[in-house]
């Protein structure tokens, strides 16, 4: 004869049993899920490893040099003559407002020559040996005032192996360099720019050429 309490206990036991059954199935499923995930993680990790190795193959200097040689024909490896520091820029204390700057690489001339009025190839050297981008900072002419923000005209960026890098949109480089320079600007006379643009060989990059022309007109 079942009493009420017996019934209660039986019910509790039944519920516990069902719950246990459920739980053990859930655990089993979760284990399978973990195993699947682990397998996926391993596959993913070896995929990453393969991708890294592939990157190593694609960025192999020998391969990059061959590619640069066949596609970047207008760019040449930078030479010592294209590298100078800001200190080497001829600064003129009496520069009239609206003075402006130049950017031109002129490998035929000795670099960093302090003589004013001569064409000077100007490029900031990379901050570190591994920093591949070499660029120059110039002040943008603004009528009446000297614009405080330095604007960079990146020229030949050197990729890993002394070969030129693929061109980056010029405004990107400007922004980057302007941040990096913290507003430092080198100011030259308008006259010197005119001389530069006529004396020096046109820069290989058309964007730079156009910009120079615009600067030269004093816009």
């Amino acid at each position: 004869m079942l009493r009420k309490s017996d019934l209660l206990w039986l019910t509790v036991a039944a519920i516990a049993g069902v719950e246990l059954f459920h739980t053990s199935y859930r655990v089993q499923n979760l284990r399978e899920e973990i195993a699947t995930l682990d397998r996926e993680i391993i596959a993913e990790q070896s995929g990453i490893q393969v991708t890294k190795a592939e990157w190593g193959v694609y960025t192999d200097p020998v391969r990059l040099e061959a590619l640069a040689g066949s596609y970047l024909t207008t760019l040449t490896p930078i030479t010592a003559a294209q590298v100078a520091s800001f200190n080497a820029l001829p600064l003129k204390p009496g520069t009239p407002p609206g003075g402006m700057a130049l950017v031109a690489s002129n490998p035929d001339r000795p670099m960093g020559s302090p003589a004013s009025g001569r064409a000077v190839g100007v490029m900031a050297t990379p901050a570190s040996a591994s920093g591949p981008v070499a660029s120059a900072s110039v002040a943008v002419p603004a009528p009446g005032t000297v614009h405080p923000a330095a604007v960079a005209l990146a020229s030949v960026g050197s990729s890993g192996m002394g070969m030129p890098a693929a061109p980056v949109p010029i405004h990107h480089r400007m922004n980057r360099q302007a941040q990096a320079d913290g507003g430092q600007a080198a100011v030259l006379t308008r006259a010197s720019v005119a001389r530069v643009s006529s004396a020096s060989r046109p820069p290989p990059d058309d964007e730079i050429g156009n910009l120079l022309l615009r600067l030269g007109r004093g816009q």
Partner: protein
Amino acid sequence: MTERSSFTDEDELEPGIVDARSLSYRSVSDAAKALEVGRNRLIITGLVVILAFLAVSAKLVVATCFSHREEIKVDRPADPEPPLARSDILDRNGQLLATSLATASLHADPKLVLDAEEAASKLVEALPDLEYQEVYDKLTSNKRFVWLKRNLTPRQHYAVHILGLPGLLFENEERRFYPSGKLASHVVGYTGVDNVGLAGLERFFDKRLKGGAGSVQTSLDLRLQHILHREASAAVEEFQALGGNGIIMDVRTGEILAMVSLPDFDPQEPGDAEGDQKFDRNALGVYEMGSTFKIFNSAMVLDSGKIHLADRFDTINNIHVGHFTIHEYHGLHRMLNVAEIFQYSSNLGSARMAVQVGTPTQMAFMAKIGFFRPVPIELPELGWPLVPKPWREINTMTIAFGHGMSVSPLHVAMGAAAVINGGIMHKPTLLKVQPGQEVPGERIISEQTSMEMRRLFRIVVTEGTAKFANVPGYMVGGKTGTADKQRGRHYTNANLTSFVGVFPINDPKYLVMIMVDEPKPSANSHGFTTAGWVSAPAVGRVIKQIGPLLGIQPIDEQNPEIRQALEMDPGTKGTAVAAYSPDDDH
């Protein structure tokens, strides 16, 4: 139970029937006592059980309600760590030099193969580099395990997998992969099929790479390695040489930025290497270096304090010792001072300087710069220098200009870096020195002597034997060396030309050395095979390309400060020979 003894006197009773009398008359007190004992025991047992259950319940409550989830550990069916045990080797910028890839290797259990003929033909179709007969023999053998092909590519793995042949099994393995191929093969080394390091860094750091201690970041710069490899190869090719080698080193830290030995091999297939392809000329090869030894001779005599830059020596009369004669290759027929002896690379002058300073001083100096032991660097293959025994005066003389003692090119680079960097010897290293990291060093010559050596290095390039090494803006200084090669007991006409270049010489940062073994005259060298024509131009080309990469500020050579720092004293500067060309080098 003790109570039962009270029943035993009533032995006539059948078992199982309780005698009522005994309960009623004799043992009422006994029975009560027994009941009491039983109840007590029951209570104690019950308490113990209840306590145990309470403990379990308490633990259950704590475990389910109060424990932190992360403490709960589930034994996982698989380890999520990848099965790649061997770590990567990186260059100083993080570019991969060596890495491990997970691959599948194909093996078979011949007992489970149903139709060996069909399986073999299908396999050969999927993997064309297998031989049918070989596969067939393996599949019909009596073993239970045969390797068919190790390290399949993913595509091959798929091709075999889809055949669905019974008895074929895959084993996950890892394979060493060298993304930049043979560019740094002698330094990085290679591994065997079971991923054991067999040469180079792979062998030296074998334990560390296997131990999962993380990747090894080397001091090498793959970009520089490439440039050095290209230019050294170009020199070897142009002069149809037997081989060559090159080193780029940071003279301030001793870091090796690039190291090339030619001919080289593919570390992926080290078994295919022939002849001396696997021989590392930089660390393992020892050579009579010729005139580059005058770097150490000059540093030694100047540092001894007994000889000064302006002192003159007889470079007209040959030296006769026993049946040896030391003579000049291109005598200038006048007395030369120490600077000119270095500039024009005079053998007679160097020998006389060394003799004046003395053999013990020379031996002590050579010991101090580590020329009696292998170079202390992270490579397993190191050459022992060949040192004369006994060390006679004639040895002192010949060693002064680099004959009669053989060291590795790495010895020369290490020593020259110390002579030129202010006089501090750093152990050369293939591990990256982190910025700001203190590099231990040992002073070998005074700073004053090092400054003088910089001037000597510079005039060799501006007015001496290495004009082709000059690179405008980078202030190259250096010393050429052209050694006659010895065959058996005799010296031959074959040369070993080397050039040790340092730039910028006013504040030395990097050393570039290129050596070419047995160059033959080329169309451009006007019949010459001396270092000034072979090695120096190659070093010049390297410096021209790596200068901008290393961020070296070009120097205005006309700057008065620079000129003053490097100008030779008018009293020591040679004036007699106006036109001196690199072919006069020896």
